[in-house]
């Protein structure tokens, strides 16, 4: 369903919107990302924010501090040694916060699921995930698609009641 914000008003100057829609629109258009890469997928994440794919046009700007970030992209294999640190980073981020799990490794352990004695088999064992992006590694287009899915989720959120 189209929100009021998407409707066109011919006499300009007037925008009618629900507060919720307006807030959600503002939030989804500036999802600042925690600048944080783990493994191979981080390179594709870098490629996504570089010249050809330009993550910035969706309002995704890498921030070095978790306290300024809205989303965290888990880009790569999460090891047991790293998992506790990721949990800490996630806890430091202010609400509302979102997580994109990028690549097979952070979804479920990827190629390391069977013999990886030091690999966490899926980041969702430690922190809750909003969007899973499959691939090893996912193409930049796939990550963009994942972000668009997340934006859709944010668009439908309510301030009053928690939607899932």
């Amino acid at each position, binding site marked *: 369903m189209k929100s009021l914000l998407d409707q066109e008003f011919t006499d300009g100057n007037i925008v009618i919107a629900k507060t919720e829609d307006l807030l959600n629109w503002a939030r989804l258009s500036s999802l600042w990302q925690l600048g944080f890469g783990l493994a191979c997928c981080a390179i594709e994440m*870098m*490629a996504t924010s570089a010249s050809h794919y330009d993550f910035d046009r969706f309002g995704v700007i890498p921030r070095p501090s978790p306290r300024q970030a809205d989303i965290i992209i888990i880009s790569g294999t999460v090891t047991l040694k*790293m998992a506790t640190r990721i949990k800490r980073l996630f806890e430091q981020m202010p609400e509302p916060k979102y997580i994109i799990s990028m690549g097979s490794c952070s979804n479920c352990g990827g190629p390391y699921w069977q013999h990886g004695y030091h690999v966490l088999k899926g980041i969702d064992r430690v922190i809750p995930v909003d969007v899973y992006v499959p691939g090893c590694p996912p193409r930049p287009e796939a990550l963009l698609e994942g972000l668009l899915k997340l934006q859709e989720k944010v668009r439908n959120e309510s301030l009053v009641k928690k939607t899932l």
Partner: protein
Amino acid sequence: MALKTEEMVLNMGPQHPSTHGVLRLEVELDGELIINVKPHIGYLHRCFEKHCEAMTYPQVIPYTDRLDYLSSMYNNFGYVVTMERFLGIQVPERVEYIRVIMGELQRIASHLIALGTYGLDIGAYTPFLYCFRDRETILSLFEMTCGARLLYNYMWVGGLSHDLHPDFVPKCREFLKVFKPNITELNNLLSYNKIFVERTANIGILPAETAINYGITGPMLRGSGVKWDLRKNDPYSIYDRFDFEIPVGTGAQGTLGDCWDRYFVRVREMEESVKIVEQALDQLPEGDINAAIPKRIKPPVGSIYGRVENPKGELGYFIMSDGSTNPFRVKLRGPSFVNMTVFGELCKGHLIADVIAILGSVDIVLGEVDR
């Protein structure tokens, strides 16, 4: 009354925008001055060696991709060259040429990331975008050949997974033509930039003797003025057929073996790689892309140590066989792992901001440091 002072321990990473992944540095400081740096690694330890023991010999190749994910082609290259020496297989000429072309393109791509992110680390954003622009062209060449952008699984024991696409050769030539002036552009933009030179010259000086004792290889060793490149000094594949130079550091902007030298060796290596690819494209023969190899690869009982010149340095595979289809033990000697050992030594006596400049010039990839 004297002011009370004390040393401070600063923790950098594992989440830090300039540590190139998940590296933790424990920096002991006296004011801004570094007394000691202790790197803590292992945050990306993905159990490569355990996986090798559970896989058959060809199945190891996809895991080698994921070691140094910036130079996957070259990791494949190192593994298959070692395996072919172990098995005594001769591969067709065309395969050798294609491997060299892919390997050198990968070297350019890897150096582009190293240089681009180095600029980014110390405050220059534009070179990063320019480097990624050229890298994307290389990636599309790889994608055209084997269908993947980053992790290729392209070189197999005794051959390749796919032959070249008919458009590959013209597209590759076109890229080289466009890329050559771009190196000059990068030089004007970054290499001789006053701010960049101030940040990197005379910083993190690595004398040749120390480098050799620490087992440093690759652009880092050459940055210290040692003319050592396995492509010339211990030739594998068909590198002895090409005409290229080994660039070494000269101390042009400061002292021999400083960060700028290591940086500039990489820039000049890209020029040499362009030369190699051009020659290989000219000589590229027609033919088969797979040697006749047994269906089940079983090397003789024994061990072998094979090494190649990866974009980061000497990549060694120590493979032990007990005569079965799975390796008994594979040990990887990663260039980043060994190059990282000298890091604490390089940082001593510098300022805290120089840690990033030095780390960028070492050019590590954590996937290979931790395996």
